[in-house]
């Protein structure tokens, strides 16, 4: 539908990913002087954490990558987008197992789904995006080179989105909602805050402030043919609304007013998901992009190009010392992988980055060779075949 959806999807999901990783890295943080190995999870010292965040943010806002991202295009399938985020999550020394990556992606997507649904106006999705951008800017405030990349992205967002009409924003929102269709994964922090029900559906209150530009429902006005108001009457609106708040700022700096898109995690509020109970919804869980997807190769080409120019850090420490676990223990992580319902599997072209670091570097190099290719042509599909075969073989 809307060909301007992908940048918003990517930036907001990326922002959520950074919130979650930041929280997990801090949770696994051990003061430098007490550094020791805790089972297979090594100590994350402050420097390493900052380095991971910087590396990921640098990759996210890579100039060439963004150029591609902002081109008018249809949304990626869930599979293809998941692969982009797999690569992004591994654009640093950090390593995630399959189960942790699955969980990370679940949390990211459910969080943004929540934000999109709860936005009072479709245009407010841009404010949510700015909240994510503001937080990202804060993560890298001490690093001027990355900061300038982030500022440039603000300008691109403003240039592309502020001229859009309300109807065009609603089309973007509808496109995003198709992407999120039928996702009802329960997130612990949402359940605790009572913004999500136990069946995985979000609470939509019939109270609170109306959106900017909307009146509190209740008034019927009748006019004469000359335009004078003849009568006015009230009706019961069945809710408990109050007037709109002031409008948030759509500039590089400013008060966004909405809290949607700000960081809801902290070290004391760990992130968990519940996999059990979601299989009840499996009858309704239909994948929009059903296999076989003839576009898979096409998307993979673009994907390869996007990620091709980016370096994968070779960690000095090649054991799983830099692994991040999104679960409380290793055992839980393993259990999550085994018990994940089939219908929730992303069926992703899986890059098992925790394995052979050598193979990983090789892949990155090969992907890099595609960056120089110009526009996609039908001939490029054979490269896609090779790439797919290579990935399957990993």
């Amino acid at each position, binding site marked *: *539908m*809307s*060909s*301007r959806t992908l940048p918003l999807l990517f930036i907001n999901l990326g922002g959520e990913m950074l919130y979650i990783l930041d929280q997990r890295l801090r949770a696994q943080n051990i003061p430098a002087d007490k550094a020791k190995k805790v089972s297979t999870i090594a100590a994350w010292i402050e420097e390493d954490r900052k380095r991971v965040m910087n590396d990921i943010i640098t990759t996210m806002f890579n100039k060439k990558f963004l150029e591609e991202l902002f081109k*008018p*295009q*249809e949304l990626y399938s869930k599979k293809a987008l998941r692969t982009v985020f797999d690569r992004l999550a591994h654009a640093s020394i950090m390593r995630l197992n399959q189960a942790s990556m699955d969980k990370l992606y679940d949390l990211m997507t459910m969080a943004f789904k929540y934000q999109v*649904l709860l936005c*009072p*106006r*479709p245009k407010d999705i841009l404010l949510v995006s700015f909240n994510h951008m503001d937080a990202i800017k804060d993560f890298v405030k001490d690093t001027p080179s990355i900061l300038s990349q982030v500022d440039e992205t603000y300008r691109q967002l403003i240039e592309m989105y502020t001229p859009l*009409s*309300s*109807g065009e924003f*609603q*089309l973007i*929102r*509808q496109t995003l*909602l*198709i992407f999120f*269709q*039928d996702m*009802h994964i329960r997130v612990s922090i949402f359940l605790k805050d009572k913004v999500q*029900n136990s069946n995985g*559906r*979000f*609470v*939509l209150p*019939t109270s609170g402030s*109306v*959106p900017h*530009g*909307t*009146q*509190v*429902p*209740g*008034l*019927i*006005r*009748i*006019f*004469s*043919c000359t*335009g004078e108001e*003849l009568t006015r009457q009230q*009706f*019961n*609106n*069945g*809710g408990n*609304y109050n007037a709109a708040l002031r409008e948030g700022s759509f500039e590089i700096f400013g008060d966004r007013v909405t809290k949607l898109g700000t960081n809801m995690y902290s070290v004391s509020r760990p992130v968990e998901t519940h996999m059990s109970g979601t299989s009840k919804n499996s*009858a*309704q869980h*239909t994948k*929009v*992009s059903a296999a076989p*997807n*003839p*576009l898979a190769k096409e998307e993979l080409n673009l994907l390869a190009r996007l990620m091709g120019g980016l370096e994968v850090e070779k960690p000095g420490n090649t054991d799983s010392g830099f692994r991040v676990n999104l679960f409380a223990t290793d055992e839980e992580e393993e259990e999550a992988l085994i018990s994940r319902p089939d219908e929730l599997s992303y069926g992703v072209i899986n890059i098992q980055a925790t394995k052979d670091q050598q193979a990983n570097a090789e892949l990155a190099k090969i992907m890099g060779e595609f960056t120089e290719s110009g526009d996609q042509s039908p001939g490029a599909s054979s490269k896609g075949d090779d790439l797919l075969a290579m990935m399957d073989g990993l």
Partner: protein
Amino acid sequence: SVAICSENGGLVASKEDCSMYHKEKSIQIKNSASALYNNLGVLRIAPRRLTYFTVVHANVVNMISASWDGLNYSHRQLQSKEPNVATSTSLIMQAAFCALPSRDLLVVTSQKGIQMYESDGSIMVYWHALDTPETPTEQAVFARGISAVWENYICVGVSSGAILVFDVPSKGSNITLSEVLEEHKESITDMASECSGSQECIANLVTADDEGNLCVWKSGEEFQLLNKIPGFDMSCSSVKLWKGTVVAGYGTGQIRLYEAVTGILHAEVNAHARWIYSLDIAPFSGLLLSAAEDSLVRVWHLTMTPETNSVEVAHLHNECVTDTQICGAKFCDGDGYAFAVTGYDLSEIIRYVQS
């Protein structure tokens, strides 16, 4: 009379009869409804004591045939795929029934074009491809907004603002593109007609766009533009035409009633707290149905007094579909005795019947 009823878990004392409608057994559908304007099609087939429903999910139209005795349901799915081309992902924007004097057709609009089926979805009788560019452009390309127009036309809107007028023969597949109306500059959102031929109508088609502009037309070999009612920079997502009055629902949650031919504003209702997704009118009783992202479906009564050229709007009833952003709401009959509702992510058609 004062009635006390419970809504949203609270107790409300209301002058309206809050038990005007009660919920009936829902119809389960194979997929959940997508968040699209006017995402519910209803066709009542009295001779066979059946009603057809359509609900769009991404690139699929779910069709359900429900017998009036509630005992028989059959399901069918229509995919959006242009014939003879093996590409995928063409998202459907809308599916709607077009009831013409000689036949009923089901029209499905997507990013690729317009499909017309026999009303039971069994055979596709016509396909019209849109000019889709090779590489995606900033402006999305799709068809949206469907209406049957007296006596043998089907009109369909396009994202460019154009309106395609198709001439439909009383049977067979010799449907032709008769005219292209280029008056709107923004994407068409919805359109509606009235006049089944039994009355003389001055205007019989209204079309709406993403900027809230409304165009009023008279059908014929060449459609005539009778009036243009300017919008106020807010999308009009759903529109109806009844007794010469345009009833328009907007993204601000407002409903406005205009006299079609003159553009005089009769009434303005602060109806909903969120974007309106669907309006419907029961023509024999003057009941109006409105539904929005705010989880509420509201029933109103419209009274037209031609002598004084005035309109009255009375609010009758609220239904709250908890935690659901509604995307389709339609009366199931011309009196408004029953209505049906669809919501984003919901895999059922919820039905309500007068108590």
